[in-house]
């Protein structure tokens, strides 16, 4: 057993590894991360996860629900640390897995992967408490600076793959192609949503409210089948993953690639916005109540997706009580992976599975970020003034709850969360 496997085993038991091992691990991780571009290219199948926030036992639950690495290809969209009791074990385990399986594990940076934020929200204190010095916190912060800012998922299928135990591609009771499937932690299908006609997706909310969606996809070539345009290898269009959202300073994904990311998260500017912004029901851009980043509306997302041949933006950053939330005609989704956030919020968590396109076009070598996406999508002949939503990938959400209390190894009477008393 290598040292790395030993460290993984120890961290999986939620036991910190020695400071010297942390130092070595962080050094190795930096060597790997420095080779990655600001926007990492990831091939489907991939399981996309949102905020974890040091909820180590819930991360174990996530692996139980989503499959163990490296069997499952994971993409974590940041905010590994702060708030929960086990930020250290959580981040170091993810980092070990990254070093051990660099092509099966993608970590991008969240706004909490920052020196300033971690001093306010707990990671600094936790490191100091567990090691008696700030050294480990410093090693980790140095790694934070090397984390990618985003990822592009290529090769996702626009039909949902069968769940384990199913032999054929699932359909809805009406026989429609399934666009969205929601499963519980046991893998049982809780709901399925057919792909609406003309590629214009009503949002999930309205469909879950019982409004009958259009029943059939359009004929091939009509734009509804997904085969009429899009980059080769992306029959379902590419998916941009980023922790927060868009920036008024970034109109092309390629502009993200030009940023100098190897620094503390700045207070403003494009890099800050990518990690801090939120979608909101507004037109255009708005000021963020967080004091950093911006709010951006549906129009911004649709133009950005069209310009960049994206069918979907997956992001995290905002607590959603149901674990995931699609907005703006399914052009952007929030994925939240910290159940009962801060041991207080009572929410469920979710992960998003994108399956591999089996048309044979979806296999591209992992190529840390220099796939020139802007060359691929120009052939569709669509003017930029008429953004049409691309037929997006089929999405399977697995919703899960917090790990049982007795698995946490916490004293039962330990105060778990602050309230006003």
């Amino acid at each position, binding site marked *: 057993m290598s040292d790395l496997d030993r460290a993984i085993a120890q961290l999986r038991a939620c036991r910190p590894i020695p400071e010297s091992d942390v130092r070595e691990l962080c050094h190795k991780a930096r060597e790997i991360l420095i080779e990655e571009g600001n926007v990492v290219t990831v091939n489907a199948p991939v399981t996309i996860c949102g905020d974890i926030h040091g909820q180590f036992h819930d991360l174990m639950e996530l692996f139980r629900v989503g499959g163990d690495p490296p069997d499952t290809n994971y993409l974590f969209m940041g905010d590994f640390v702060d708030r929960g009791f086990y930020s250290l074990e959580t981040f170091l385990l993810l980092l070990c897995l990254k070093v051990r399986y660099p092509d099966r594990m993608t970590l991008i940076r969240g*706004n*909490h992967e920052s020196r*300033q*934020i971690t*001093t*306010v*929200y707990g990671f*600094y*204190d936790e490191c*100091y*408490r567990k090691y008696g010095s*700030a050294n480990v916190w410093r090693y980790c912060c140095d790694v934070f600076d090397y984390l990618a800012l985003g990822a592009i998922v290529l090769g996702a299928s626009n039909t949902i793959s069968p769940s384990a135990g199913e032999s054929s591609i699932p359909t809805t009771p009406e026989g429609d192609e399934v666009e969205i499937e929601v499963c519980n932690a046991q893998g049982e299908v809780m709901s399925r949503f057919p792909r609406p006609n003309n590629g214009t997706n009503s949002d999930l909310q309205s469909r879950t409210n019982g409004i009958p969606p259009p029943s059939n996809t359009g004929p091939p070539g009509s734009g509804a089948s997904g085969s009429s345009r899009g980059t080769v290898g992306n029959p379902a269009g590419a998916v941009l993953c980023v922790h927060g959202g868009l920036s*008024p*300073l970034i*109109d092309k994904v390629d502009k993200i690639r030009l940023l100098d990311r190897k620094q503390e998260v700045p*207070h*403003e500017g494009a890099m800050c916005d990518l990690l801090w912004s939120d979608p909101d029901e507004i037109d*255009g*851009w*708005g*000021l963020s*109540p*967080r*004091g*950093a980043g*911006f709010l951006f509306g549906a*129009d*911004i997302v649709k*133009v*950005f997706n069209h310009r960049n041949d994206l069918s979907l933006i997956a992001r995290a950053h*905002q*607590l*959603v*009580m149901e674990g995931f939330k699609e907005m703006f005609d399914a052009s952007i989704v929030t994925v939240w992976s910290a159940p*009962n*956030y*801060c*041991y*207080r*919020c*009572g*929410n469920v968590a979710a992960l998003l599975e994108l399956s591999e396109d089996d048309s044979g076009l979806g296999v591209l070598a992992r190529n840390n970020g220099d796939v020139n996406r802007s060359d691929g999508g120009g052939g569709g002949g669509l*003017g*930029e*003034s008429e*953004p049409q939503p691309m037929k997006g990938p089929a999405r399977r959400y697995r919703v899960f709850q917090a790990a049982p209390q007795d698995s946490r190894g916490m004293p*039962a*009477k330990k*105060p*778990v*969360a*602050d*309230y*006003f*008393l």
Partner: protein
Amino acid sequence: MSGTAPSIPNLLTLRGRIGGAGVTRGRYRGVIHRGGRSHGSGAPSASAAHDATIQGTDTDAAVSRLSAVQIGYLDDPYAELFAQSGPGTARRLPIINRGTHARTTAIDKLVDKFLDDTESSPEGRQIVSLGAGTDTRSLRLFSPSAPTPRKRVIYHEIDFPVMCEKKQRIVRGAPQLRSILSDPESVEELSQHGGGNSWHSKAVAEKHEGSELWVHGLDLRAIAASQQPQQPLPPGVPIGSRGLHASPSDSDSTTQQKEQTEATTQTQQKEPLTLTSLNPNLPTLIISECCLCYLPPSTASSIISLFTTTIQSSLGIVIYEPIKPDDAFGKMMVSNLAAREIKMPTLEVYKEAGDQERRLREAGFGADEGKGGGGGARSKTIEQIWEEWTSQEEKERVDALEGLDEVEEWKLLAGHYIVVWGWRGVGVDLGI
């Protein structure tokens, strides 16, 4: 949208910088120890342990107050006297600090309105703070540097005798408080009702002439025990020359009974419950800042009705407590607090803002509002208070202290706490 890049708005110039402050503070601190439970040590019964837990919530509140003060949310030089952790060791998350700011300033605003309205009351006015614990509002009010002169304010605090003893010890031992309060003097009262450790001080500053602090050591459940169950007090209850007497009660008050107040049925004559110096003829404001919620609903109602039936002058009430126990956040809140052995029985009865306002209307605050009657009942969640009562300038000041990244969590948490207030009678209008 045109085909060009989305125009880049010049919003950056409008935005304040995040953080800045708050990075260098408090780095080298250990675990925050919450909820001093020492009060109950040696107490054998589960009930006594529960009392100690509830008393421990005061420690929690004191630490939260100190955290908000140290980071700059609130200006309260007395907070550090009462938090058991020393200076520099209290630190709560930004949403807790913002909530402490909102609840404190909201109650201050209502207290100020009441005191402004009753400024000309010739014999003065009084405030009764239930379960005040180590609250510092009276000290801030009577400070020589307080922004407003507050003459003839009789400030009563009621809490467990053990809490009153602690507060007296701290006030007596803090030389810097001698410019605010005279040396505490012990007061003999309430022993018939299991109370004790009462004390009082006078406001020292000339601008607060005639103002006093009275701290009454009393388990509030004794008030309910002193009243006829299910029977409101008749008007004209016996009232002493200097004090207020609750209804003559035929129940006993032993330690045993304190634990089973609701079930009290014994019929032995005892003295009426009297809070020294509480004057039923003065305009009065009742404050319950997370106090009545720890009591059974009928006990909480009895305590309110003690004041509504005996105060003959205008009367106001301000209650701050949690609501919405039934949604996902609320269920987790109830469950988490239960794990700390904190139960809030009234939460199951007054679940929503409407229930809380109805509670006050039924207690006589604005029952006829809108039909020509006086008085009223209002409520706002802490989130609404932050949004609607906090000036833009103050929001920007507070937001600049720490980056608040927990926007969604803030809305959840702050939406589960409410300030509900009511008023009745001449000259007091809390309709803000």
